[in-house]
């Protein structure tokens, strides 16, 4: 069974791009437009990987990761943060919240797949 990836981004085009790339590589993708939506989904479903943008309305990606780590089914789930900020501070924030790692935007489909393959 294909691994399920929860892709969270407030930008529809990024979501589509990510989802198109991942589906092409044989993953199943669930999309969410912000942290709140993603968390709602996660409360009722298990996924194999979470891929989230940082800057989003309602709930940002860092908060989402922190919240997800608090859910029983997500304690050990790999979580990657999509960030345009290569800055240390943001990465540390992500780490402290419990992110497995990050992908620095912009990335191309190959980079995305290579990064996902690291943890799946």
């Amino acid at each position, binding site marked *: 069974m294909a691994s399920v990836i929860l892709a969270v981004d*407030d*930008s*529809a*085009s*990024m979501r*589509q*791009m990510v989802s*198109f790339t991942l589906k092409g590589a044989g993953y199943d993708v669930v999309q969410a437009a912000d942290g709140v939506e993603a968390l709602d989904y996660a409360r009722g479903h298990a996924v194999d990987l979470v891929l989230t*943008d940082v*800057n*989003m*309305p309602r709930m940002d990606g860092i908060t989402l990761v922190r919240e997800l780590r608090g859910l029983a089914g997500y*304690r*050990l*789930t*790999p*979580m990657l943060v999509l960030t*345009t900020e*290569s*800055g*240390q501070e943001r*990465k*540390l924030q992500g*780490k402290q919240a*419990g*992110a*497995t*790692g*990050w992908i*620095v*935007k*912009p*990335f191309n489909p190959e980079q995305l797949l290579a990064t996902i393959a*690291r*943890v799946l």
Partner: protein
Amino acid sequence: MALDLEMEEIFKVFFEESTEGLDVMESGLLNLDVAADRETINTIFRAAHSIKGGAATFGFMEVSGFTHGVETLLDEMRQGTRGVTQDAIQLLLQSVDCLRAMLVATQAGTPVDAPRIAAISDELAQLLASPAQQSVAASAAVAAAVPSPLAVPALATEASPAPATVTIATSAAASAEPTERPDFLASTAGWCIRFIPHPGILRLRNEPTRMFGELARLGELQVVADTATLPPLAELDPEECHLSWTLWLRGGASKQSIEEVFDWVSADSRIDYRHYPDPRAEVQPSVVADAMSAAPAAMPSEATVAAPAAPVEAATTAASTAVARPASGEQGSIRVSIDKVDNLINLIGELVITQSMLSRFGDDFELDQLERLREGLVQLTRNTRELQESVMQIRMLPISFAFNRFPRLVHDLSRKLGKKVELRLSGEGTELDKTVLEKISDPLVHLVRNALDHGLEQPEVRLAAGKPETGVLELGAFHEGGNILIEVKDDGGGLNRQRILKRARERGLVPADAELSDEQVHQLIFAPGFSTAEVVSDVSGRGVGMDVVRRNIQDLGGQVQIHSQEGRGSTIRIRLPLTLAILDGQLVRVAEETYVVSLVAIVETIQVKRDRVSTVAGRTELFRLRDQYIPIIRLHDLFGLACQRRAGDEGLLVVVEADGHRYGVLVDDLGAQQQVVIKSLDTNFRPVPGLAGATILGDGTVALIIDVPGLVQLFNDSAAGTPALAAVA
């Protein structure tokens, strides 16, 4: 192929959402004008951030490069290190315009306006380089200079034997740091990496084995695990990482590529790198110690902030560039909310059920089933009506699509005119048909410009008149019956009766001795070529007059009225049908033909009485309607229909209003009032003066829909006609 199509679709989404993002930025920036609150700045920042990220991902480097400067400025505002000044807001608004143009050009594949982009980028760079920025830069520099607490000193210089094979070495062996060249790297360049992970890395699913696998791809690898810190089994937490490693990597892998492998764990783990150059070069190993904080892969876009120095004259051009953007409603696609689609699917489902129920009667019908058949047909009628309404809903968009541009327009214009204006919007959620929405935008812009330019007074004039310094411009929309009403209301000087009359007499629009009511005077501003503007400014007076505004509105089947009180302001009220595809019509019979007249245009319908008809100049018949004489339009004559009637024969007069004047249309009989679906004559046949289209009636016959303003035009142009003003004078 499919991939290209898919990408194209994604690009399209990107452009759509970026355009929306720009709208969000713009309205946010205009709100900052009033009050700078954190959430607004955050929202603006987020929009810019998304545009930059998307543009970079999809390879629109010019867009992402430009947006980076904007984002940086917004970020400083967000962090509170830079004040929210008028100048900064103005520059950001210009940047939004510039970005909008860039997106349009990028999507169309045409070249971007490079000088303008360079000029604004330059201004952004200058602003960013101004004092507020320096303090930020300074603190950043300090931060960079202070070593991270995680940074470790250079590798110790204890000697240690280099393991020759991949083994789990003893703790002593592994903890010792080699300074002597390890055998493994005896004849080749390479790296020695000491990796002491944070105990929690496994929990975050960072597997050391995965990293080692990646390292192995960079060159031949030797791994030695250090088990010294491994606790006794009873105390061992299986989720924690108790091991540390020493790795030797052969070959010329770059430090950056190695750091990348450890990127995710380097923040909280200790990682030391030691490089061994090729032994033939005979150099001592250089020691590179760091924690990951010193390992930043620079973002490509960062380079572009400091980018282009533009010619100074370009800056002024850019600054004065008008807000040019495609009206947001004019795209070929519309976004429909899921609710509407769901509703539609739901209704289709019901329709299918009704259809299957009815189809059973087709097979073998018995007379006793008649009642059931009737019920079915009633249900079908209901399904069809609901389906029609629901489909029409899909074309409905909130009028905010047209209103959204006004905060910016008013902001820019009031600055230019030196007036103080408060814009109040209401009813932005009121929905109307997309086509109507598109076509009403330009007339609305014209009306708003007029209100600002001619209506509202300069602050000192207002104060002298005992009014508040700041003028109020209200823009509202609401539903009334099957129509939408849009009001443009200002509390300015109102229409000047004397000036209008003077101009109208100069233009020969009214006889010098005509006595006109206020209402009639106000109507004069809609006459072609009429303008009382003493100074033709570049704000209004661009050759599009109120006559064009009215014509546009009438083309949409709407009406425009003006109410004005001198010294108190003016209200312009536009009444529009909700949709162009369906018309609330009155069927009328003339000879053997059935015509449809829009209910909106009909004032009343009355029986013709011979004694109230008089003939002017032997040709035009006038009907006395209470205290007014209205010309009678004979459809028989105009459309060349066989059956001739004389006024006074039994007949009905449908009183219609067009261009503010009333006319009586003589018909033989009235039919039902019903909604008709408009089929265009232009596309199916050819344009016919006096007709707005055709429709198919319930019995299958075709009925022509009368275009009332066009009919009046036709009537006035025909030999029987007299100038329209005769009707009111």
